[in-house]
């Protein structure tokens, strides 16, 4: 129950959510809702783990995970962009598909033994800063450090570069983009792919760094859904997504830690003695996700939260005002 440890672990587990959430933010900012994050993360986690076993190189595992998840995201892209089908239905199907594929191909992986993991290290000087040093810069995975750089870079990319301008525009008003000769379909395929790759990276972050190993669908344990909820919570902004991800990471750890001690604040710990209380705690992040998704599915509320205006609408040339 050391707050420093909880936060340190929170940042590490939060990195998983961070990659997945920012990936989904990019896809949604282009106008495509992809509810397949959970499935893509499982594909990523499984691919990363099995590739690392086969090659002994965890970096190859990361690359393979990103590629595999990116590839499977293109099924969703084809169905929703080219065939203009409902994004919610297709995304759900992608989660089932991703889960199924990873369970079949991952059969036996949990007994495959140990693999070489991504390195953990401390950053000299920075790790000496009081409080922040131990939380952020001590014995963290290399992917956690990548996460630190990743958020501001994505924010800058979205808000201050030309491709970022194109991305924001295609999610807000695709016909404007189309009228200026930029391919709406091309942009959307690309960002669904990027979203898939980042979900794959999130999966790899679990299986090669934060909670190493393959535990079939418990590897992700619904974190893909939490990421989808966090996108709404973050109002499609990567910086807010970062804080949300770390907060959720810390919450996960806190919930685990709170169930450990027999005595808490001088009382018998109800979370230790009564398992149902523990289950209740473990339910909270998912309950949050359900609530956020319900709120976010209301059109009026979405507008108020600043959702990309064209989110969820297939683009059909000549159909005005969409």
């Amino acid at each position, binding site marked *: 129950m050391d707050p420093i440890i909880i936060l340190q672990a929170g940042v590490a587990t939060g990195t998983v959510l961070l990659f997945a959430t920012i990936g989904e933010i990019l896809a949604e900012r282009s106008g495509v809702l992809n509810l397949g994050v959970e499935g893509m993360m499982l594909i990523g986690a499984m691919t990363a783990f099995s590739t690392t076993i086969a090659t002994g190189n965890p970096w190859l595992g990361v690359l393979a995970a990103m590629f595999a998840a990116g590839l499977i995201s293109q099924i969703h892209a084809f169905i929703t962009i080219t065939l203009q089908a409902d994004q919610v239905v297709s995304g759900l199907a992608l989660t089932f598909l991703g889960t199924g594929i990873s369970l079949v191909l991952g059969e036996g992986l949990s007994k495959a033994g140990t693999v070489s993991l991504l390195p953990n290290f401390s950053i000299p000087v920075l790790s000496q800063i009081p409080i922040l040093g131990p939380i952020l810069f001590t014995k963290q995975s290399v992917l956690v450090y990548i996460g630190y750089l990743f958020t501001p870079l994505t924010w800058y990319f979205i808000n201050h570069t*030309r491709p970022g301008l194109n991305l*924001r525009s295609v999610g807000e*008003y695709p016909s*404007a983009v189309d*009228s*200026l*000769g930029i391919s709406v379909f091309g942009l959307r395929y690309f960002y669904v792919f990027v979203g898939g790759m980042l979900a794959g990276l999130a999966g790899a972050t679990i299986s090669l760094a934060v909670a190493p190993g393959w535990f079939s669908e418990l590897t992700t344990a619904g974190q893909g859904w939490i990421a989808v909820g966090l996108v709404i919570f973050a109002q499609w902004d990567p910086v807010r997504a970062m804080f949300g991800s770390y907060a959720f990471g810390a919450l996960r750890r806190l919930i685990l830690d709170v169930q450990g001690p027999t005595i808490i604040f001088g009382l018998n710990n109800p979370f230790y003695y009564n398992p149902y209380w523990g289950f209740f705690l473990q339910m909270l992040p998912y309950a949050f996700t359900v609530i956020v998704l319900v709120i976010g599915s209301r059109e009026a509320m979405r507008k*108020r939260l600043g959702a990309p*205006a064209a989110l969820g609408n297939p683009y059909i040339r000549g159909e005005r005002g969409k």
Partner: protein
Amino acid sequence: MTQTIPPTPDAPFAVEMRGIVKRFPGVLANDHVDFELRAGEIHALLGENGAGKSTLMNVLAGLYRQEAGIIKVKGKPVEFHSPRDAIKSGIGMIHQHFMLVPSQTVTENVLLGLDDPRFFMRLPEYDAKVAAVGERFGLKVDPRAKIWQLSVGEQQRVELLKMLYRGANVLIMDEPTAVLAPTEIEGLFDILRSMVAQGKSVIFISHKLQEVTAIADRVSVLRRGVATATSVPSRGATRQELARLMVGRDVVFALEKKPGNPGKIVLEVKDIHADNDKGLPALRGFSLNVRAGEIVGVAGVAGNGQSELSQVIASMRKCKQGQVILNSESLTNHNTLFGIQHGMAYVPEDRNHVGSAPNLSVTDNVIMKKYRQPPISHAGMLDMSAAEKLARELKQAYDIIVPNVSTPVRLLSGGNLQRVILAREISGLPNFMVAVQPTRGLDVGAIEGVHRLLMAQRESGAGVLLISEELEELLSLSDRVYVIYEGKSMGEVKVGGVEPDESLIETIGLMMTGTPLDQIQKEGVGANG
């Protein structure tokens, strides 16, 4: 309104289109159309909705490809595969629905799709460049403003700026005045004149005759995909002549408006407040009343709370404060059925999704308000033969052109669909009707029909609330006009005869841009005009 000096008749062609053919499934949109535009002129392209004007211009702008015919720009044949190619040849189109991203700044919208700057946006530097181009053509707009903060007139200037920044020489404007207040229209005309003075050419697509004669140097007319006139000097052409070329028959402009005989108040709206879809206040204390036997207009530039007003009256939007009273019965926040039972008829703005169920038949659509009463239903069972009989009667009475009443209404043209909706609403014998933009997107003939039906309602003693962005329509039909601006009433003016005077239009124009009537009367009309 002053005419620009016409360019010399032998000015070189900026654009020539010869024998353009464009087909859509089942429609020949352009049938060997010739069109020519000279450098430095404002050329109007006139025609009814569906005449093929926009199609022809979309071909020129590279959005569609013609099946036959050639396009020459400055004498050289060109082939456009995308709008980008057209822009490279100096042709830019400003669509009726603006192609602007609301959440972004003016500069970001101008720079969208360009190659410079390549990667990092460096907006402050480009803000200055965009402002400089605006300065040159008299387009005043703050480059750092977000599009959603701008008025429609300003947004249109951003569209022009976008094309001018790309070096367009030929600007195609698709019905540019449809969304503007009268004062803004004057402003647009000034900008267009300053652009042609600097050597640009403008194609002005319109179906409004008085504008065409006011701004254009020459006119081409399309009817049903065929050019019925090519490059006629607009000076000297009368409205009647142009209308005949456009419609193919004589059009009656002045509706017969019998002197009104307003009775007791049927609808009273008292100090209503309501939010829009985004949860922002759209109506802030709006009041009006409508008497039996009169048409009351609500004028205003699009998006000032008109839609919300009609929805509150029709009980389709929650009213946070205030009251809606119909025939001394409070409708406030009741359901729509309650209003219907008290004599409400509603012709909504969106006739395709709110006014009708597109996949259902004409019959189903006309019985929607009557299905619970005999003869359409008995003891909870629908009598489809009675329903069809009613539909056939209405088809006859309202001149609905449709092969049979089981046709889904999505296959109907705008004018016919509107007649279906009006047939349903009027046959319920309402004593009050609210009609929102009832003629938007309809052609001249269909507009005439809708106007007649509204007039007939007035004469039969019902009260009609007409919410429209077409000032001409409001003035020719209404007995009184309220002006709405940012959800508040700017005052109410009486409309006398059928041909309204200029000062009334000017007063309404000032009110539409936010000056309350009492202030105008204090300062005198034209004080800031």
